[in-house]
């Protein structure tokens, strides 16, 4: 401090007195006083303090004087603080006032900026919620990181079976043979019973069989009953809270009995919490695995059980899998193969067979597992990445618009900056001013985004098949995140213009000179190109997803989808099934009625078959269903060769009809008349070959199918009713009447077949809709940005337009002049966006076995759309500017 010339005035110099220099006050305190003095009125209290200090030092000694000085300074602090706060508030009040005035003066600009940013933020929050939800699947299990699902990949005779399922004895073997395994349990899904308690009857889809060990592996909190006693005794079950309420209301469900399909009674022994939405499996009922005899099977070849393993901490799963596989194949699978195929393990592998187990981490199942027979349609990692990128891109576009508009306005406000600087604004005050404006706008946008999110969320949930909500309090990061986002976007958008604008030299701007327009205009161009490229990618994405959907929808699936009503659980009718069907067939408007064990869109069972004259290792895995002779007619299926089953004797029971793919698979050139033998050793005769049809999603190539004939008294679970001259809704009451007549109290369950089958394509359809929303948003935001930008560019060049008009330029020439500039940017955007879009969507389509062509049309349409939007937006602005009478624009100078 003593060296600071501002604080010292050598006594001799100023007054020339010979009096000894007074002792200096304590250094630290004096320094502090010096720093803070500008916040006190009178501006410099140091002099007064110093004067008394010097006096005290002489009269009472330096020590007391110092203490006094410090105390005085301390007493001054509240005053200093008060003033400090007062002036900061005054400054911010001023910033806000100026901000408000600027906003009011340029309402259009402000509106575009806030709406654009709000849309961007809303979009970002929405996608953020979606992505977070997708990533949160199955993490609610406390032991989630130690749980894995066993799956198997079997290649036999060129037919692949690849599923997250294992054989019935696997769980027990893992528990018994391996110390690394803490526990293992199976889940099995079979059928959807109709449950009854007193007068409450419902059909239940989420009905699962489970080993009791599942309660040690998954986190399943019990609300009532003892977990130790649950899932052990056959004839009992555990249900979720909402199911308990549905059947029992306020009664205590424990000990009560639910009757399933009027056949079997189940006693309730426990009530568990509902399964969170973000789980890869949703059960409403858990029934002891012991209830089904098949669960005790020692068949190691057939894989039907979802098997979950809880490993002890620190187990290397890859290493374990290798050891277990060798072990299990030697001990169990080998003998099984021998029994089923008549091959030794060596012969099986030598013939090109493969048999591999694998483990899937529980938390990876939802996003990473897309195997056969998943428990529920899973999400897709690709979409999570894609949507995250889209979210960021949209936020970026909105932010870019903000920066863009702000820099475009630089020249507009250059004069203001010049005047302010001349009056004595410090640069940091100008930066503060501009940052304050940006931050206020971004905060408003974030605030506005919230009602927008609320507005859109219900619709979005429906589209995406989710139950998302805005987690104000449940998620401790959410509010800080929004505040952070407002700050980040505000700073991002405000910093560049703030520093650019505040750096203007007053002399040059006020004289009307350069404002560094070249640099900002280049940046602006880059930003416009960027957002149009992103918009292009999104539009192309939407178009491709929809054209793939249309492709799926229009594709000849090999059967009819329209005008078919399906009655489920028809097997419950027993002996009344045939009379029921006859009466249905007699209804006016009914074209055909067919009974079958399954319908397209259900998971079909499969068995191994081979032509009778081929060796045993020629077995092929073929999906099968049992149908009556009307099935082909009901679904409009075409024969390729031979015939379908015939009435009245429903054919010999060994007659089968196979698809073209099945014939190819079995290597039969002329299949009709050939004999097949199944794994169980029964022989069949092929009476016809039916045209291939798609019975599952188009991701997989068509797989072979074989039809067997039901006995004449039916017994299949489904009755399909094909209508010709009557609407589906009109026939329903009549169907239900007939059902009641034959089925008594059994619930009538029906479905429209096209709805049922649409579920197969549900995930593509959802993707398409989500894409559509986001691309509309992106294009909307981008054109809002362009609108603002065009408005400013034309405004800035108003005088130029005026002069050109005076000199004889036509409106069209002026229009063309500006359009060329935007055209160049669009061209560049197309150059970047189209290859990118092609690359991304080609990858997406690779996932489908049957895919639409990625034609030029899609890109042309997207480009046309973008060009059109840009053209309209820009033209409106230009034409408006060009129409103004030159007198009005040139008059001012």
């Amino acid at each position, binding site marked *: 401090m003593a060296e600071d010339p501002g604080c010292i*005035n050598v006594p001799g110099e100023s007054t020339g007195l010979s009096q000894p220099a007074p002792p200096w006050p304590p250094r630290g305190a004096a320094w502090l006083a010096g720093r803070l003095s500008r916040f006190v009125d009178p501006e410099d209290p140091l002099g007064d303090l110093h004067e008394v200090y010097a006096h005290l030092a002489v009269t009472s000694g330096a020590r007391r004087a110092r203490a006094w000085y410090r105390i005085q300074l301390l007493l001054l602090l509240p005053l200093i603080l008060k003033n400090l706060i007062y002036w900061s508030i005054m400054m911010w009040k001023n910033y806000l006032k100026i901000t408000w005035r600027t906003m009011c003066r340029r309402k259009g600009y402000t509106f575009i900026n806030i709406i654009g940013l709000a849309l961007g933020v809303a979009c970002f929050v929405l996608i953020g919620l979606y992505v977070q939800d997708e990533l949160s699947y199955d993490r609610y299990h406390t032991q989630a990181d130690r749980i894995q699902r066993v799956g198997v990949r079997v290649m036999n005779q060129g037919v692949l079976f690849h599923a997250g399922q294992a054989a019935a004895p696997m769980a027990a073997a893992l528990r018994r043979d391996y110390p690394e395994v803490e526990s293992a349990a199976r889940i099995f899904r079979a059928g959807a019973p109709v449950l009854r308690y007193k007068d409450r009857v419902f059909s239940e889809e989420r009905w699962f069989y489970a080993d009791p060990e599942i309660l040690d592996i998954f986190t399943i909190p019990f609300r009532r009953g003892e977990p130790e006693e649950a899932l052990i005794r056959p004839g009992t079950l555990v249900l979720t809270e909402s199911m308990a309420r549905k059947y029992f209301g306020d009664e205590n469900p424990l000990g009560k009995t639910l009757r399933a399909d009027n056949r079997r009674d189940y006693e309730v022994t426990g009530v568990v919490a509902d399964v969170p939405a973000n789980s890869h499996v949703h059960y409403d009922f858990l029934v002891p695995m012991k209830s089904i005899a098949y669960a005790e099977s020692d068949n190691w070849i057939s894989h039907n059980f979802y098997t979950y393993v809880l490993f002890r901490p620190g187990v290397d799963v890859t290493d374990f899998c290798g050891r277990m596989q060798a072990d299990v194949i030697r001990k169990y699978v080998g003998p099984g193969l021998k029994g089923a195929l008549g091959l030794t393990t060596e012969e099986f592998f030598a013939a090109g067979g493969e048999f591999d187990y694998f483990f899937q981490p529980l938390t990876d199942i939802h996003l990473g597992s897309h195997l056969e027979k998943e428990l529920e349609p899973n999400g897709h990692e690709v979409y999570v990445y894609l949507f995250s990128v889209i979210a960021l891109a949209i936020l970026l576009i909105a932010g870019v618009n903000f920066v863009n508009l702000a820099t475009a306005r630089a020249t507009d406000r250059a004069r203001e900056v010049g005047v302010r600087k001349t009056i004595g604004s410090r640069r940091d005050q100008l930066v503060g001013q501009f940052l304050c404006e940006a931050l206020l706008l971004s905060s408003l946008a974030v605030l506005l985004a919230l009602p927008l999110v609320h507005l859109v969320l219900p619709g979005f949930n429906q589209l995406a098949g989710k139950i998302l909500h805005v987690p104000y309090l449940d998620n401790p990061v959410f509010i800080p995140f929004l505040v952070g986002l407002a700050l980040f976007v505000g700073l991002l958008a405000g910093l560049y213009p703030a520093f650019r604008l505040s750096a203007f030299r007053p002399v040059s701007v006020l004289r009307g000179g350069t404002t560094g327009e070249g640099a900002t205009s280049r940046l602006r161009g880059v930003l416009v190109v960027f957002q149009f490229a992103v918009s292009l990618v999104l539009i192309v994405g939407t178009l491709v997803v929809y054209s793939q959907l249309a492709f799926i929808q229009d594709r000849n699936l090999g059967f009819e989808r329209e005008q078919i009503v399906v009655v489920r659980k028809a097997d419950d009718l027993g002996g009344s099934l045939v009379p029921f069907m006859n009466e249905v067939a007699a209804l006016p408007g009914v074209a055909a009625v067919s009974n079958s064990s399954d319908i397209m869109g259900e998971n079909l069972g499969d068995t191994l078959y081979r032509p009778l004259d081929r060796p045993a290792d020629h077995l092929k895995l073929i999906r099968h269903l049992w149908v009556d002779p009307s099935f082909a007619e009901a679904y409009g299926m075409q024969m390729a060769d031979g015939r379908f089953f015939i009435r009245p004797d429903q054919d010999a029971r060994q007659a089968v009809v196979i698809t073209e793919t099945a014939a190819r698979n079995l290597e039969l050139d002329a299949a009709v008349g050939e004999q097949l033998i199944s794994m169980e050793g029964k022989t069949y005769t092929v009476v016809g070959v039916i045209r291939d049809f798609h019975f599952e999603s188009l991701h997989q190539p068509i797989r072979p199918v074989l039809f067997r004939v039901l006995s004449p008294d039916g017994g299949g679970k489904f009755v399909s009713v094909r209508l010709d001259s009557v609407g589906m809704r009109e026939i329903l009451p009549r169907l239900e009447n007939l059902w009641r007549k034959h089925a008594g109290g059994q619930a009538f369950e029906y479905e429209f077949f096209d709805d049922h089958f649409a579920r197969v394509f549900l995930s593509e359809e959802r993707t398409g809709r989500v894409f559509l929303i986001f691309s509309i948003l992106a294009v909307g935001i981008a054109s809002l940005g362009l609108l603002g930008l065009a408005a400013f560019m034309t405004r800035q060049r108003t005088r130029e337009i005026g002069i050109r008009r005076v000199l004889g330029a036509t409106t069209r020439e002026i229009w063309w002049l500006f359009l060329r500039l935007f055209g160049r940017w669009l061209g560049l955007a197309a150059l970047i966006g189209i290859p990118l879009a092609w690359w991304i969507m080609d990858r997406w389509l690779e996932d489908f076995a049957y895919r639409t062509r990625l034609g030029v049309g899609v890109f042309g349409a997207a480009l046309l759309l973008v060009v059109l939007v840009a053209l309209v937006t820009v033209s409106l602005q230009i034409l408006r500017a060009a129409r103004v009478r030159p007198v009005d624009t040139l008059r001012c100078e």
Partner: protein
Amino acid sequence: MKLVTRNEEMILLAVLRQDGQAYGVSIREMIQQVTGEEWSFASIYEPLAKLARNGLVEKYRGDATPERGGRHKVLYRITPAGRAALAELQMIQREMWADVGAERLTGRETGET
């Protein structure tokens, strides 16, 4: 005009009586002489600043002295508005004190000493 507070009144009077030579130290000294209390600078600056804001006193720059570490004094003098405020105050006080004699102050009416 809003009445000034007691502190402000004392400071204003000090400024008036020091004939334009008043500054932080001198005001504080005068108050100490009259009341015997030692005021902190903070409790002088704040009312002083308010008086200045309200236009009752005005600041001007004085000389630097060696004991001030070479700093200028910030001197205060009273403005016409300040004089008017004091005059009003004096009148009010005279009114308020009009009937208050020694016997009342010694507590014959209220019974207090």
